[in-house]
């Protein structure tokens, strides 16, 4: 099973690295993060050894970066009509989905690793709370994983990359920002709490404060598993249809 997952992951990664998309997305992501931190937020002038402003913008950046990474995953296969070939190969649907999930996850992790020089270079200037920074990276990775699985699921529903990108962005916008507003608008605390539980950002906030809570990690794991599972079901239903 793992070998077959690895084969799919390799195929997907090759797809990323053999096209300019991965480099453009990574480059833009890194440039934006530096511009945001050093020029928009004027980090040096703020004179505070705290990267919260850096990590707090990542959920919003992911609203665009992750759809760009996942949009081609299934939509491209459908467009090229290679999805039918893929489904007839001796792979189980779950293997295809996990393989397709791991590739953008590796790419996203690589992008995040490339931001590590920021705290490392800044550590010469001030005493950073490294526990908090580690928590923030753990939070971003788990957050990203859940967003990728959502993006993949939407890509599996679409036939067009652009539609997939737009739908994923809108869905992430909803789950990152709109849930907070809905939660605020509900006067009944129990219902507000229930809606709030689905907010990707609330769980991310705890992690980014340097507190690793199993509740928050489990939330992202559940969300990832949930959307990956829906993705496999989509493939199965597609097979029947």
């Amino acid at each position: 099973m793992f070998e077959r997952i690895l084969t799919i992951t390799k195929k997907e990664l090759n797809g990323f690295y053999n096209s300019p998309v991965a480099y453009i997305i990574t480059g833009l992501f890194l440039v934006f993060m530096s511009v945001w931190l050093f020029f928009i937020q004027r980090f040096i002038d703020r004179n505070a050894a705290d990267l919260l402003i850096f990590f707090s913008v990542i959920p919003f950046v992911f609203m665009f970066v992750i759809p760009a990474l996942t949009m081609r995953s299934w939509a491209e296969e459908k467009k090229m009509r290679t999805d039918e070939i893929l489904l007839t190969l001796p792979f189980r649907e779950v293997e295809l989905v996990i393989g397709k999930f791991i590739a953008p996850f590796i790419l996203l992790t690589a992008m995040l690793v490339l931001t590590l020089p920021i705290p490392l270079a800044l550590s010469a200037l001030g005493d950073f709370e490294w526990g908090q920074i580690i928590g923030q990276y753990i939070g971003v990775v788990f957050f990203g994983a859940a967003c990728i699985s959502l993006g993949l699921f939407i890509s599996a529903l679409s036939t067009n990359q652009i539609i997939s990108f737009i739908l994923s962005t809108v869905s992430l916008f909803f789950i990152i920002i709109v849930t907070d507003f809905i939660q605020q608008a509900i006067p009944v605390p129990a219902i507000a709490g229930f809606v709030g539980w689905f907010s990707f950002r609330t769980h991310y906030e705890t992690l980014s404060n340097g507190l690793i809570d199993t509740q928050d990690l489990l939330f992202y794991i559940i969300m990832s598993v949930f959307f990956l599972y829906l993705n496999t079901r989509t493939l199965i239903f597609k097979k029947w249809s």
Partner: protein
Amino acid sequence: MNKKKQTLIITFMFIAVLILVAMNSTIFSARLDITETKVYTIQESSKKIMRRLPDQLTITYFLAEKLKTSNVIFRQIEDILKEYAASSEGKVKLTVLDPGSSAEIENQARSNGIYIWDAGEKSGKDSAYVFLAASGLLIEYQDKKIPIARIQSIETLEYNLTAFILSIIENKKKTVGYIINKPNWNNSTFQSVLQSEFEPAITAEMFNPGESIPDSIDALFIVGTPDFTESELFEIDQYIMRGGKAFFSIDSVFIMQQQGQAIPHMDSNLVTMLEQYGAKIPPALVMEGDDAFAPIHDGRQSYVYNYFFRTFAEYASKENPITANFAPVVFEWASPIELVPPVGVKAEPLTSSSAASVRVQDQLDINPQNSANLYQTLSPSAASQPLVVALSGSFPSFFQGRELPESKKDSGVNAVYNSIPSRIIVVGSSNFIDPATIDLMGLQGSNYYWSNFSYFKTCIEWLTNSEDLIAIKTRASRDSSLSKIQKPEEAEAAAGFATYFNLIIIPLLVVLFGIIKYMLRKKAKNE
């Protein structure tokens, strides 16, 4: 059952399992605090203090459920309180109530001094609704009820709570006395600062110069000029001789801002008394190099002035709990302090100026126009100088070998000439905790003032033997500024490197990697 139906059932069952796991995750959860200062974990000293509680203590946290779901900080407050209850071995009982859930709870909160406010939220395009928001504590022990009206941060929560529990155990609230001997002192601002920062653990009581200081005062602080009569000094001296602890924030020179000059306070008894205790404040001022400037903002522009400066970690004592976990402080027109401890007194500098600082004496020119030149002239003699010193031991009385003041001679007072072991802290500047700093230095001044006040508060805790509380407090007072590199040009270079390395070099490397990969592929294709 056909395969399609079977798959649908499995799908729904899988989703049901996920929901169950999600529901359980909120019930059975574990947390790992990975912050270096363990912000979300209560300290061992707090746990020990709680276990010493002779009777059960009840904490009621009035928290609006809607606040809890809208801001993670309220959940963290609740978690810290839960940890108090869990680690108290049954001595602390925690109840969380939402004032918005019933009129009865709302009345209970209001009547106990919990701050309740109307928080408005938009619920639609043209509609909004209001809910009752509250995040306050009511601490009950035996017949005592102490409210903490509003909590919105976790930084000082443990400190305030443990300080309160400690005061219950010791069955006595600490009382600090203070004497202000400074013209134009804004006492109403200072009193409100004292109240907000010291309550509920410490009560502050003001004394006039010459007033007798009772032994019930746990520590005394004296701020201002050293102009005290012998009779006024007698009361302070005898308080210390009886084991009283004192903090002196004293000017040895008189600042004449308009004239751009400072002149020494002549024949000051208080300066002589402090010298006898072990801390000599010479009629001089410290000037710092440009690494240590505390920029002043006059409302229009920022400028630097060598007499206003900040301190650095490497010039703070690592041995004393006050400065062990360094927090920077700011000085304005501060005098250096020389350590001249008599036999039986231990003297230690707590905070010193940097090795680039110079001492200005004789001609005390404080004109901002001349300060840079004056510093340059004196810079060959630059050396680190103590600015805050701690003395501990048995102090000799100022009146040893002197005649008692006339007013005390006939009153039948039995003077004590050698103190029982005590502690004294001396700062060579009355501006150290002067609220005027806030006005003098604009927005920056406000930040400076609070860091100085926090340092001062830690000094008072050390004087009143509350080391357990210092351990809790100092963990939060980390130097979080970008001031690791002291030389401005080096700091600027490091900031420039961090900015442009991450903005240009790293993305460029990514693009370069892509181009190389593309060329290699192209080459392989051609072959």
